[in-house]
């Protein structure tokens, strides 16, 4: 009896190669770049340095994930086509230009036009670090759930959100200038709304996509990751902070209490990490036929 090609509708298969080390890099790398960018705007050299440290820590996780970490430098050689290679340049540029900005802000020196160039370059590098990981995922022909133009924007929003949350958490121990946590909380409110909108839009678009993308959504909304996604990412990470902060943020008498803002920041950071975890773990390959 002859074999039928169509009988090989072998089921979708989860990706298992990228795990917690890559996920932790996605989280810390984005958060570090986000924190640096916000701190640069606030001209707070300590916070800028903190952001760069988080980025470097995240990069160490990425290097640990490599099969041959001692060969990491080879990843700089294919920037013409590989987003991972481009990412290496973005990270290196941010560490270099960011480091020089920290130096300028610490020494309160003015290098004239060079200062402006360094600031613009550092901001561009920070934005690139926040979004390029989305471009690593979004062209994927193999994993339809990742094949979405939303990812660069979602990762940018989540990175900024996490960066500001790290700043809020560090605010009591950072030396002057003082950090306006009340202002930051208002920004966070907007960013949380944006993240919620983007995540929902992504799910909506993907629900009409290839079979593996639909199965990924099933996993997140009704399957094994549903509790973590609906309860953790959407509930704890986005909706609960909105409900807790929303009613009081724009009252004239609004003042921040560190214990409360710290809880809000931790909830959002938890949701952010979980989001990146689930995006990676819910990646499924299409069936072979």
């Amino acid at each position, binding site marked *: 009896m002859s074999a*039928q*090609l169509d*009988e090989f509708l072998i089921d979708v298969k989860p990706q298992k190669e990228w795990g917690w080390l890559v996920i932790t890099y996605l989280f810390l790398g984005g958060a570090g770049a986000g924190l640096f960018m916000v701190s640069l705007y606030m001209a707070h050299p300590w916070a800028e340095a903190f952001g760069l440290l988080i980025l470097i820590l995240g990069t160490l996780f990425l290097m640990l994930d490599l*099969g041959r970490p001692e060969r990491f430098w080879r990843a700089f*050689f294919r920037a013409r086509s590989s987003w991972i290679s481009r990412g*290496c340049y973005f990270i290196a540029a941010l560490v270099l230009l960011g480091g020089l900005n920290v130096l300028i802000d610490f020494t309160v020196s003015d290098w004239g036009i060079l200062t402006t160039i360094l600031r613009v370059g550092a901001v561009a590098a920070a934005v690139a670090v926040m979004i390029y990981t989305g471009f690593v995922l979004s062209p*994927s022909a*193999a994993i339809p759930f990742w094949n979405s133009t939303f990812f660069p924007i979602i990762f940018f929003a989540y990175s900024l959100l996490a960066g500001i949350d790290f700043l809020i958490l560090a605010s009591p121990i950072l030396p002057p200038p003082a950090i306006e946590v009340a202002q930051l909380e208002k920004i966070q409110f907007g960013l949380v709304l944006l993240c919620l909108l983007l995540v929902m839009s992504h799910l909506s678009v993907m629900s009409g996509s290839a079979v593996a993308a639909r199965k990924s959504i099933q996993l997140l909304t009704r399957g094994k990751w549903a509790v973590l996604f609906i309860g953790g990412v959407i509930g704890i990470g986005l909706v609960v902070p909105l409900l807790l902060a929303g009613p009081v943020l724009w009252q004239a008498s609004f003042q921040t209490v560190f214990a409360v803002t710290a809880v809000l920041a931790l909830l959002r950071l938890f949701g952010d990490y979980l989001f990146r975890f689930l995006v990676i773990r819910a990646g499924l*390959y299409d069936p072979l036929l």
Partner: protein
Amino acid sequence: MARYGMVIDLNICIGCNACTMACKAEHATPPGVFYSKVLEKEVGKYPAARRVFLPVLCNHCKNPACEEVCPTGATQKRDDGIVTIDHELCIGCRSCMEACPYGARTFHKDEATYYVNEKTPFEEMKQNFANGIVMKCNFCADRVDQGLEPACVQTCPTECRIFGDLDDPKTKVSRIIAEKKARPLLAEKGLEPSVFYVGS
């Protein structure tokens, strides 16, 4: 320049895995690493139940997604269309594995041998690669360069695998693809695979 490819006739594959073993012997791949393998599946219901087989390997795509995402240039496409990995350049980031829709690549994570803690002289001689890298079928490029067929093709007892130049319409592989309306896997991905399947 030729563009090498393969056609596999599923109507005559008997699922013997001779290709799998020939490939292992040719490349001395470590445990868990298969450049070529045979997927099998039971279809139908008793009394009409039967097993069907799908031999799979790297599809040596004309537009290889793996090559595009590789950050080091370890994955390369030769002029003859064969997609190879330079094991010395691979950093083990596995982005190629995430990009390949065929699951044709394997991460050789840990040093492992078929015998406990010891490599056979054969493995010592053939395994000129480190652990922590990604590995895959290279259409037996060394053999092809010597004018030979890939080991899996030469070994197949039913001759269900035919290898040759896809750009030359006179070759056996091109004629079979045309006559039997062979088709590749996941053609809709746009990668233009060079491995075709005949299934009735």
